[in-house]
């Protein structure tokens, strides 16, 4: 192959690269902190912690230049983090600013059943311009999340999810693995074309439904909701066609995610994990999406310390952890092998942006105290040709001869 062609094609295959020197700057680390969920503030009413959540249609940008309309809690993706202590009384005012229906389900929490947020099973959906007040006691401890439970195929992947952390003052994990820093990584998968099409359909449909609701002409057939199986079957016998027979409620195709995100962002905008040598960090992994991830950390065997928020009595070590839809896993990473290490889904289809590699849920574990001379590719790379080039005074690629941030050959 002609050399110029080879170079341009290998550049094409490796996509975007960002110089690692940038990620050691103070500014970058500050910016990186913004990529973790912001905690929702509360006010006290007696001994109740009161939170406010809203939902709006807004525009989200998972990676620079790619925008799509989506549904956002408090205009954030993921929604803001609710962090309370075990046993706290929690009251969440949820206000719906859209013309769609929604609910909130508190995933992994032991709420009273009427607070569980499943439409028509334990509550009516929160209709346009309505507020629903969720009240419960925070339990059990650990890493959980919340998400919309209405039209979840669309609403949940559209952005209606957020982390819910219940802290335990006597956390056995913290006792065994004393850590100062923790990170919350909420994984999700988005079919932005599906979201767009389905959102248009739903908006159109809801306009019609709102009209009929105002006139008191809305019935169970239009809701596709019946009081009993018998009612449903009677309706079918009288000519009602359930939505699974006539496709009048959703697009015929199920979503095929083309964007994979951590905290709503895809590579190279995904959040980085910073660590120092000798430090332990806790990473709370949440899968709020509808695909499985097999997260693999290079150069380390982390400790699996919690499953669905529950501390594991006997943590085990691994370098790859399956993060299944609806699951949360907590891991402890020990800073015992300094460098810049990839932490990514080993189902590499999900480290793509719109089908282009690299992207998606690709990120790194970065030793922020990595000495600058160690970032020098020439001294430590073992590349004899590059060493010769440096000795002869040739200009090396990537300013200062440092590596691009990510190894792209895993």
């Amino acid at each position, binding site marked *: 192959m002609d050399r110029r*062609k080879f170079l*341009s*094609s290998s550049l*094409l295959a490796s996509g975007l690269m960002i110089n690692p020197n940038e990620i050691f700057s103070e500014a970058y680390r500050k910016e990186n902190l913004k990529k973790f969920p912001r905690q929702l503030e509360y006010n006290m009413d007696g001994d109740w912690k009161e939170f406010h959540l809203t939902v709006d*249609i807004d*525009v989200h940008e998972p990676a620079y230049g790619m*925008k*799509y*309309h989506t549904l956002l809690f408090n205009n954030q993706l993921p929604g803001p983090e609710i962090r309370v202590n075990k046993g706290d009384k929690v009251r969440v005012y949820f206000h719906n600013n859209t013309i769609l229906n929604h609910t909130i389900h508190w995933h992994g929490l032991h709420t009273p059943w009427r607070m569980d947020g499943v439409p028509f099973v334990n509550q009516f959906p929160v209709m346009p311009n309505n507020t629903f007040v969720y009240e419960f006691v925070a339990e059990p401890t650990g890493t959980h999340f919340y998400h919309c439970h209405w039209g979840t195929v669309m609403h949940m992947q559209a952005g209606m999810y957020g982390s819910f952390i219940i802290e335990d003052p006597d956390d056995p994990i913290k006792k065994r693995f004393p850590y100062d820093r923790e990170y919350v990584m909420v994984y999700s998968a988005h079919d932005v*074309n599906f979201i*767009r*099409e389905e*959102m*248009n359909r739903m*908006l*159109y*449909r809801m*306009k*019609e439904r709102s*009209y*009929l609701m105002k006139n008191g*002409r809305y019935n169970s*057939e*239009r809701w596709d909701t019946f009081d009993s199986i018998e009612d449903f079957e009677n309706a079918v016998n009288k000519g*009602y*066609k359930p939505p699974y027979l*006539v*496709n*009048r409620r959703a697009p015929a195709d199920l979503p095929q995610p083309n964007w994979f995100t951590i905290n709503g962002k895809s590579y190279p905008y995904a959040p980085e994990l910073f660590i120092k040598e000798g430090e332990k960090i806790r990473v709370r992994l949440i899968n709020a999406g509808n695909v499985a991830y097999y997260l693999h950390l290079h150069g380390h065997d982390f400790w699996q310390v919690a499953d669905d928020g529950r501390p594991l009595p006997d943590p085990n070590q691994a370098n790859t952890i399956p993060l299944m839809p609806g699951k949360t896993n907590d891991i402890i990473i020990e800073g015992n092998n300094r460098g810049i290490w990839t932490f990514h889904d080993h189902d590499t289809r999900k480290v793509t942006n719109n089908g282009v590699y690299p992207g998606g849920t690709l990120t790194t574990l970065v030793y922020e105290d990595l000495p600058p001379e160690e970032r020098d590719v020439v001294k430590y790379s073992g590349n004899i040709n590059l060493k010769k080039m440096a000795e002869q005074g040739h200009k090396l690629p990537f300013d200062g001869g440092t590596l691009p941030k990510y190894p792209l050959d895993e």
Partner: protein
Amino acid sequence: MNKAMNGFQRVVFALAGMMLLLPFDSIGQYNGGMLGEDELQPDFPVGVKAVTSFNFDPLTGKNYVDFSDTELMIGMRQKLYNAWRGQFIFGMQFPDVNADLGKIFYTQVFTQVENERNTFKLGRTNAPSKLIDFPTLRDDDAIDLNYSLNPFSNGINTEDNQYANMIDFTHIINQRYSIGFHADNYIDEIDRQNFSVNALGLELMYKVPDSEIWNRNVLQQVGLSVLNYLTRREGYGSWASQSIRNYLGSFMLNINPDPVYFWDFSGQVIYNEGFKEIDNITTYQDYTRTETFALFGALRFVYRKLEKPLLISSGGFGYKFFSKVDDTKQMMAYYNFFYRLGNNFDVGLQYKYNLNQGKVLNVLEDDKHRIQLALVFSFDKIFNSQFDDRYSILNLEHKYIK
């Protein structure tokens, strides 16, 4: 060469130029070897409409099966650089049995580029000779009254009025108002080799997008247009006095914009200035070139069960005055009824009454009563969909995303 190919070639030669005849990789885009292999797949819209009817004339007892207007349309759409979009549409249909257009007629062969505010179209597509689609079984059921008639036609093919090769530029002033200018080549049956621009027009339109139909505004649509057919009028010098001007006005009103029992009314008037010297109709050209005033209106009812139309019924009436031709008039009334049998499939019945009086009988048959029993299959889908239409709710209400 058969006649259908003729129609296609017109577009190619008259408008798209020689480029389409050259090998693909030598025109437009050079792929650059292997670097060009990773092209983004375009959107792929596919539309099908099969209209088959059993036609019966109760007076003469004549009957026949008609599948004209049956149409297949495919397209490709792509995002371009700099917030523009490009598309190509290709469509064909079976013309009337006695039509002079061969077995297949290419109704659509055009390319279009558009951005948030502008569309630019080049090729053959629906002619700008009407402002409203009336809910008749076939688009040409009331063609004498609801189309501005092509003065270059010999009256054999209704397609002469329905389709034209054109360059069209439309500017969208805001989401509901638009202004369009077009230069057209109407099919010229007098001089079949004439592919030059033979009409110019200007169109103003106010239109509430379908996606906002439950906003319940009374006014759905108002349109105005002027169409100048560049005829060669004997004995006149300037192009203005040589041309025939047609003025069109239209409106569409919601009578009862209820999502279950929906009623609307649409109307259109066409004033054809004509040539004052034509006071008799002996040829089809006389018919299209004399002064006329045509009115057409239709009332439509849609019963939507569970968010989809189950039953559609409409009735309409049209009248055409001939101010210069004695004792001559045209009238037409229709009523139809469609019932949805399932997804994409309707059964329908249409009754049509025509009255042609006076000199028009020299060129048109007096086709009084016609009953049509029809089956209609229609399908419309965008495969590989990657972006929204201009008038989607998200675009309209939450700003257009480039």
